[in-house]
């Protein structure tokens, strides 16, 4: 009897939130036990609402624990606790209400609650009211992020209230901005909204557009007469560009204002349902293998009333004439929509400009990657005239050197600083060895150099596979290269890409310096122009060739480190770049570093340009670019910057 009493008491507790409040958080949680355990965004709302409505101070801790996946349920009685792993599979549980440790449990006795990110976002929104005025700056920032992700009208008031007391200048600015955005969407006063819209119309942020765009969303509608109580955006004429006849009629059909058209499929289905002793509508079944016969049979059926009649063009015209087509704003206030449209027009124009700028930055970045990949080739192929198909593999070796160095030096900054000269050394040695052993025997036979170096290329690639495996290896950029340089929400470029651009510039300078200002450069130019003459002037052509080739290969190795940083390190990394690199050099003009630069620039800009025109298919961009290059070569066989006079050789 006593037990029964207790049980009914418990039920009473669960039913009365007012009582529960005195008892703490756990009863509230228990009254929503099932949905909390399930943690689905679709059902969780009542639980979160109840928790925040309780006004209990421990609710904040509880919600934060829950969002951090640190809340556990004891399987034996379904109670919720904050859990902390002690060791192995045992966890220490803490009561939310009392803050006391209630004991250590095995994992098998517990169930961890894992709210998905949808639920976490809702928890975050619920936490906003606590966090906006929290002491901890991080929490206040988290609150702002939550508002940003899920703007809600209810958050406007607490946000406004918190601005006054905000001490951190940065956060204060953010809060003010958010307040403006929420005002646009949720303020009751139309004038305040219009004012906010106008105030933000110079801002390029995605969030501003995200606040404005929902205001100008329209719905396409049809009615016998134009309604007067709607905020109408535009009246459409059927048969115009904005609304074709077919679309208009489909709209009528969808609004149940006209009969649907009868398609060939419908005709076939109707015919096969009405076969009568080998005939349909008087036509023998065997003759129904063309559309005319079928239409005829269907018309016969329609006359008997067995099927609905065909919709003729006249029917369509008639139906279209009887109705008005228009678009309405979902937002009721015409002043707000007008202000939003105007602001958006203004923003769109600026966004367009900035997108062009962003595209330009992307193109420059791509061009500098191509340039970096091709600069070594510009030396070996451009200056020496040696076709080195293993150039890509030198890039790969550089990238792998970077990876290996990172295995030994865990500090990313230091490892990159070590990796760059290491990569140069490795590929320089490799290049010198290759020149001495293979290439110097083949100077007179360029086509065979191509094939021999190709042999080296496939051997090196397979060796890399044997040593490092086919799996991509991570080459992690130092922390200060993470992230991106953000000009505004439209224009941004990652630091790694900027670093590559800078590296490309450095190499350009280095190359020019070596070629124009050093003894080696002078000898190189002499040997490539006329080896015999250079030889008789006391230059050792063999040695110079060796050094030149080593230099080109070494630069490829450094390029490999850079490319590995922004993409991936795999054994076929090099073959991704080899054809493009040759293109760069050939298009730009052989024998001239400016040519390689021009070539890389042209290819980079071209590829981004084509991508911009056809954003859903990146592959097409590459195809058309190559076709363009093939055609371009026809008209400028010597490339953009062609050497003239004796230097052109041949």
């Amino acid at each position, binding site marked *: 009897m006593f037990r029964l009493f207790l049980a009914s008491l418990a039920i009473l507790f669960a039913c009365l939130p007012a009582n529960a409040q005195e008892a703490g958080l756990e009863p509230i949680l228990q009254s929503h036990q099932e949905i909390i355990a399930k943690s689905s965004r679709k059902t969780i709302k009542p639980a979160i609402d109840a928790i925040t409505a309780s006004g209990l101070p421990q609710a904040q801790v509880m919600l934060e624990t829950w969002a951090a996946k640190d809340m556990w349920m004891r399987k034996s009685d379904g109670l919720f606790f904050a859990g902390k792993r002690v060791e192995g599979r045992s966890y220490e549980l803490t009561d939310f209400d009392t803050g006391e440790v209630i004991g250590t449990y095995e994992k098998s006795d517990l169930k961890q609650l894992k709210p998905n990110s949808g639920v976490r976002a809702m928890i975050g929104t619920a936490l906003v009211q606590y966090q906006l005025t929290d002491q901890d700056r991080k929490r206040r920032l988290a609150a702002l992020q939550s508002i940003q992700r899920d703007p809600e009208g209810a958050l406007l008031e607490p946000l406004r209230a918190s601005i006054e007391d905000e001490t951190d200048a940065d956060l204060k600015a953010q809060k003010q901005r958010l307040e403006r955005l929420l005002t646009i969407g949720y303020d009751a006063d139309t004038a305040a909204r219009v004012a906010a819209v106008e105030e933000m119309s110079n801002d390029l942020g995605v969030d501003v557009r995200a606040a404005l765009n929902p205001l100008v969303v329209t719905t396409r509608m049809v009615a016998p007469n134009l309604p007067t109580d709607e905020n109408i955006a535009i009246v459409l004429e059927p048969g115009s560009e904005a609304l074709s006849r077919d679309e208009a009629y489909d709209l009528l059909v969808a609004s149940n204002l006209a009969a649907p058209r009868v398609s060939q499929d419908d005709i076939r289905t109707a015919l096969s349902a009405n076969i009568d002793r080998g005939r349909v509508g008087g036509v023998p079944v065997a003759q129904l293998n063309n559309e005319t016969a079928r239409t005829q049979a269907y018309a016969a059926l329609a006359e008997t009333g067995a099927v609905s009649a065909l919709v003729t063009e006249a029917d369509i015209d008639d139906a279209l004439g009887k109705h008005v087509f228009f678009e309405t704003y979902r937002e009721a206030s015409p002043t707000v929509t007008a202000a939003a449209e105007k602001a958006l027009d203004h923003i769109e124009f600026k966004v367009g400009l900035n997108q062009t700028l962003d595209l330009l930055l992307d193109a420059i970045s791509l061009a500098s990657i191509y340039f970096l990949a091709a600069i070594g080739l510009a030396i070996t192929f451009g200056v020496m005239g040696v076709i080195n198909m293993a150039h890509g593999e030198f890039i790969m070796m550089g990238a792998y050197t970077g990876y290996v160095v990172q295995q030994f030096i865990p500090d990313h900054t230091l490892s990159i600083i070590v990796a760059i000269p290491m990569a140069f050394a490795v590929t320089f040695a490799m290049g010198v060895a290759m020149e001495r052993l293979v290439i110097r025997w083949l100077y007179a036979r360029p086509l065979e150099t191509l094939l021999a170096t190709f042999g080296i290329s496939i051997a090196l690639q397979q060796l890399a596979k044997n040593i490092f495996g086919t799996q991509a290896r991570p080459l992690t950029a130092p922390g200060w290269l993470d992230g991106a340089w953000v000009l505004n929400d439209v224009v941004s470029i990652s630091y790694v890409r900027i670093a590559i651009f800078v590296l490309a510039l450095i190499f350009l300078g280095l190359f020019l310096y070596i070629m124009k200002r050093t003894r080696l450069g002078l000898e190189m130019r002499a040997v490539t122009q006329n080896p015999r003459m250079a030889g008789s002037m006391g230059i050792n052509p063999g040695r110079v060739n060796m050094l030149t080739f080593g230099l080109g290969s070494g630069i490829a190795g450094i390029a490999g480190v850079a490319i590995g940083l922004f*993409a991936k390190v795999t054994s076929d990394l090099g073959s991704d770049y080899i054809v493009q690199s040759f293109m760069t050099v050939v298009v730009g003009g052989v024998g001239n570093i400016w040519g390689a630069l021009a070539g890389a620039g042209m290819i980079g800009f071209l590829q981004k340009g084509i991508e911009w025109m056809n954003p859903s298919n990146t592959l097409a961009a590459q195809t058309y670019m190559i076709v363009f290059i093939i055609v371009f070569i026809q008209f400028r066989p010597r490339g953009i910057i062609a050497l003239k006079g004796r230097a052109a050789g041949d």
Partner: protein
Amino acid sequence: MKPLKSTLAGSVVFAAIATAALSAEDTIKVGVLHSLSGTMAISETTLKDTMLMLIDQQNAKGGLLGKQLEAVVVDPASDWPLFAEKARELLTVHEVDVIFGNWTSVSRKSVLPVIEELNGLLFYPVQYEGEESSKNVFYTGAAPNQQAIPATDYFLDELGVEKFALLGTDYVYPRTTNNILESYLKQKGIADDDIFVNYTPFGHSDWSKIVADVVALGADGKKVGVISTINGDANIGFYKELAASGVSADDIPVVAFSVGEEELSGLDTANLVGHLAAWNYFQSADTDENAEFVDTWKATMGDGRVTNDPMEAHYIGFNMWVNAATTAGSTEVDAVRAAMYGQEFPNLTGGTAVMLPNHHLAKPVLIGEIQEDGQFDIISETDVVPGDAWTDYLPESAVLKSDWKDLGCGMYNTETKTCVQTLSNY
């Protein structure tokens, strides 16, 4: 001299036949058709090792039908035509009773005509695009409705995503999957303008523009989600660029269908934490069977190795085949196939997988969040989903049905009540 010679020759021939017959008597041959070299070796070698491990385990348990199992491993070298050649070799030269193999769809399409011509039996362990049902293939990986559709539902219901970016590598699996998803999303009321589709080549590395496009999708105030069928290495650059542009999983969640434990094992996962993947199996599944499976795998292959979804598919497929052969009392293909329908075997993630008459499994679908350590935190598990060979979300295939048990047809048109074809049209 002459009689002696012929006797000698005769006895040699006899001996050869005898040994051949003996070896045929002694073992049951299991073909393993996975690339051990070339671009796919990275994924497929693991599956070969899994098969060898499973066969060893079975032999330790006493083999099958009183005979030992013998693995016949061949290397089709990631070369699609070579798959067909090697499959023919397995079936006619080595005379295997069953083949476990293939990864890419194109390799499966290459093998199909050979398997059907010679009435072989293939277990295909990888998630795929569906729209196929062969009498001679059991699909133990996920069909689109067992991976893509539940993941999309999760996006719609749990994350409240209203705008979708479908990013994929340009080949058949992403193409078909995205096609199905587009049609599915439209049925769910997502407008055409709210679906952004992009295809990139294999190994694509220049992601800055695509990521910028995806971020810009958020401009109309709708929550954006990315459904990624990006394959292999290209994922690395994609996630790196995503992280560089400051987009977190809370802003724009990414669910990937081709990123598993094996793919993550070579990656710095710090950038990826919180992004999602949908599979039928994760190594982090907390069951005793899985703990044992993972332990055996690590003991065989080394501590650093991970398990993944296609491995579980082979685990289930192989055990089902063993049980079916035991039931049928023979490894003859038609008998085994008849015994396969309705076979049940416990999943490593808990529950039981059932082989359906359409040659697909009924399994629950899991969604996991990527963690720092390269493992997945399972945050959602659906009820058991029966695999569907022909998707319900494309008009042409919605009317099609596969039922090899009762209808004896893999492409049955339920509207016209006719069997479109019994052999596949590759």
